[in-house]
């Protein structure tokens, strides 16, 4: 037998390593695959649900990290497969409605998810578990703004000319807020567009992402903005002191949660996961770190978190979008925004 050269050894090692590179990871017998956002959200799922609740119950949670739209597209695409790749898909309420409407997700009842009985009445949905929610508020730097706007209508005043910032990625939600202002409903988009054009003419500044507003606040480029209360909570924890003002006409709610695809490989584990999601400890954990409000009635917030996230009295009007309408209108609203707001 000829002596083995270094080249032969390397080639052999590569062949031996190939299966490890290419094969799917082996899972424990009881596994729940959760399609989720990454970053802090995934970490908090691990810290508040996966490790403390699911693991002791013998369920190994595997996260499938990615963006929401690809996740939704994948759920549609794999609907014909007898077994999908995830047991749970994390989506916003609008996509939750779309997937429910397309009959791609399992209906949920208190029988298979007992903690559903604690879900706040306005947030209940037949096949979507609301996990967290936040309200769209007017944020301002209290060191500069002593008399903050009380309503979106106030943003048209000359004193705010060129000093208002918004985020383009949440255009439909801003339009719903404008609709709420003009007609008291979330679906009067003609009135909303008219208001937004006036705001645009008053020097509205648009930013690509919510966090792009923070440097603009800091530099004095803007003095007020319209974002989610949860993000202002995170800014405060990041050392940037902003305050949120609930608009007097009402605040639109953003709700994020989970659905269970009909072809989920392990539905029993998925039901357990959804139940754990609504447990008070899990809800309080998310509130403490991300500033989102609990979606259940048995997870009161206390201490600094409770103070920072307290809904003011008198209680402002909190408005859940009409998902049937907004899920269909969203592409047109985004299109209108791009054509009329971005470059004017």
């Amino acid at each position, binding site marked *: 037998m000829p002596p083995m050269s270094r080249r032969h050894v390397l080639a052999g090692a590569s062949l031996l390593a190939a299966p490890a590179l290419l094969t799917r990871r082996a899972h424990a017998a009881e596994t729940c695959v959760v399609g989720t956002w990454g970053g802090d959200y995934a970490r908090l799922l691990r810290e508040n649900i996966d490790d403390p609740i699911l693991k002791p119950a013998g369920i190994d949670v595997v996260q499938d990290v*990615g963006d929401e739209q*690809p996740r939704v597209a994948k759920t549609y695409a794999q609907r014909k497969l007898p077994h999908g790749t995830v047991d749970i898909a994390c989506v916003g309420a609008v996509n939750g409605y779309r997937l429910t409407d397309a009959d791609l997700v399992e209906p949920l009842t208190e029988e298979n998810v007992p903690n559903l009985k604690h879900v706040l009445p306005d947030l209940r949905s037949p096949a979507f578990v609301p996990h967290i929610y936040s309200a769209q508020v007017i944020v301002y730097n209290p060191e500069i703004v002593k008399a903050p706007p009380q309503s979106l209508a106030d943003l048209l005043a000359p004193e705010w000319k060129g000093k208002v910032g918004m985020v383009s990625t949440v255009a439909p939600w801003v339009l719903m807020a404008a609709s709420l202002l003009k007609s008291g409903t979330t679906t009067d988009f003609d009135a909303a567009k008219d208001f937004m054009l006036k705001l645009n003419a008053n020097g509205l500044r648009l930013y690509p992402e919510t*966090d792009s507003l923070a440097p603009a606040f800091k530099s004095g480029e803007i003095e007020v903005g319209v974002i989610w209360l949860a993000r202002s909570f995170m800014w405060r924890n990041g050392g940037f002191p902003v305050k949120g003002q609930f608009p007097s006409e009402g605040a639109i709610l953003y709700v994020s949660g989970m659905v269970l695809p009909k072809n989920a490989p392990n539905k029993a584990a998925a039901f357990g996961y959804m139940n754990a999601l609504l447990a008070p400890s899990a809800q309080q954990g998310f509130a403490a770190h991300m500033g989102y409000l609990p979606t259940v009635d048995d997870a009161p917030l206390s201490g600094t978190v409770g103070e920072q996230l307290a809904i003011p009295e008198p209680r402002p009007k909190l408005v859940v979008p009409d998902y049937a309408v907004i899920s269909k209108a969203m592409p047109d609203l985004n299109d209108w925004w791009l054509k009329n707001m971005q470059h004017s």
Partner: protein
Amino acid sequence: MTDALAWCERSAVTALVAAGAALIGVPLLLTLYLSVFDEKLILFPPHAYTLAWYPAIAANFGAPIWTSLRLGCAAVAGSLALGVPAGIGLSRHRFRGRGAVSTLLLAPLTVPGIALGLAIYVALIWIDEQAGSALTGSMAGLVLAHVLITTPWVVRLCLASLANHGRDTEEAAASLGARPATVLWRVTLPAVRPGIVAGGLFAFVISFENLELALFLTSPGVTTLPVAVLQYLEYHIDPLVAAVAVAQMAGVAVLLLLLDRFVRLGRVVR
């Protein structure tokens, strides 16, 4: 008059080169600058500077970096296995459909990444449906997709490498009795070596930074670096991502310098 014209030409070229260098260099320098801000939000001016973001890279992105490295290596191996023979064949042989094959090998570059990702995902589902396989959401599916997008680079760079190398030496070797395999091994492959190295490098970089395919094709429990960075940015806009970018640039630069020492990449990549 001629001197004045020459001076104008030289000045214009210098200005264009300076503008090009600034266009490339300024964002890199800004990224480097941002990566040392001692701020949780990227606020200018920073209240202090720190290098603490760099040690945090491993803790936050260690697993995704390892995944991307493995994926990049697998994509390089696959694209070289396909692309080098294809490049040599297209360069050294004339056959019917050569133009079509050449175009086909470039085609993946012309499809938008997000559309390609979704299309491959749907194709894998169809294969699974028909064959009862489990390619959807598997590492094998992701590797195959990366091979698809990296192969065109290898083919093109091999072709570029052989374009400057006439067939005379190969014909001389053959006329002296060398068998075709010997000609390939002793003459053609050494000639195409810079193209192979440059192609492998490009394939690795293209694979390592690809986001769109990973959004659709990663398996549960597996995250690549671009996806992890995108997801991190959902909740943070701190200098950690800038530190990751600087580390990535430094890694590629070191790789380039090392490779250029052994293989003159400038002969191919210009």
